[in-house]
């Protein structure tokens, strides 16, 4: 579901994105999906790092760049969480959150950071992240439902 949503948004936001970069992002996610499906966390990491470590072309609109990077950073954070490496997860999540926004991509990163903080025993901070993510999801729901 998240993947479908992301691809739909990617297609929608690609008005200014050179096709090659969009294709590269799609390819990175596909390779990460394949690697993770066979339990290959390193393969997933490698695929997504190729996307986040290379600066996007200058022609990419800032918001397009943000959502593509945030989605990849969220996935990287969750890979680290599932590999019981919360500090690494925290670093990826913080990097994504620093890009700003107030949408599903941002909320996903808050959830990933909450997972990392829970693993680190920082329950109070985790709770704050979860609650912030919940409020954003609620705001999005409010907008999505007709009045």
């Amino acid at each position, binding site marked *: *579901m998240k993947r479908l949503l992301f691809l739909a948004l990617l297609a929608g936001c690609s008005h200014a994105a050179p096709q090659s970069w969009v294709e590269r992002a799609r390819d990175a996610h596909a390779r990460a999906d394949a690697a993770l499906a066979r339990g290959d966390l390193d393969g997933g990491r490698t695929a997504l790092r190729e996307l986040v470590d290379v600066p996007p072309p200058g022609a990419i609109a800032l918001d397009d760049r943000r959502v593509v990077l945030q989605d990849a950073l969220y996935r990287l954070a969750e890979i680290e969480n599932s590999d019981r490496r919360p500090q690494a997860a925290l670093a990826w999540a913080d990097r994504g959150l620093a890009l700003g926004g107030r949408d599903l991509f941002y909320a996903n990163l808050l*959830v990933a950071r909450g997972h990392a903080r829970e693993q680190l025993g920082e329950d*109070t901070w985790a*709770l704050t992240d979860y609650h912030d993510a919940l409020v954003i999801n609620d705001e999005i729901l409010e907008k999505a*439902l007709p009045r």
Partner: protein
Amino acid sequence: MRVLILLMMAGCAAAPQERAPTTSQPEEDIAQLSRAIEQAERELEGPSMMAQQADCSHVCELERRICELAERICAIAERHPDAADAKDRCQDGRLRCERAHARVRAQCTCPIRQ
């Protein structure tokens, strides 16, 4: 919308003059006009009503996330019974989950969670 209907009513009001004079049946004329107006209202509102329908897969997913996060928050709050802030956030999360559930279910049939 109202203006359109009023214009249509104004147009309809002229119609009886062109009709063959019948035995004056004002009640039937009024009923006919009412039906025409209702039909016009349905046609005019149709597309906008369609546009206002919720994207059920999207809103169901949002509801699921809200309620999962609320559960997670409350699980943490239970581990820290002395933290008033945690209790407040748990309560707020539950309220938002219930509200989301009610609002989404009023418009969509969401898949049952496993």
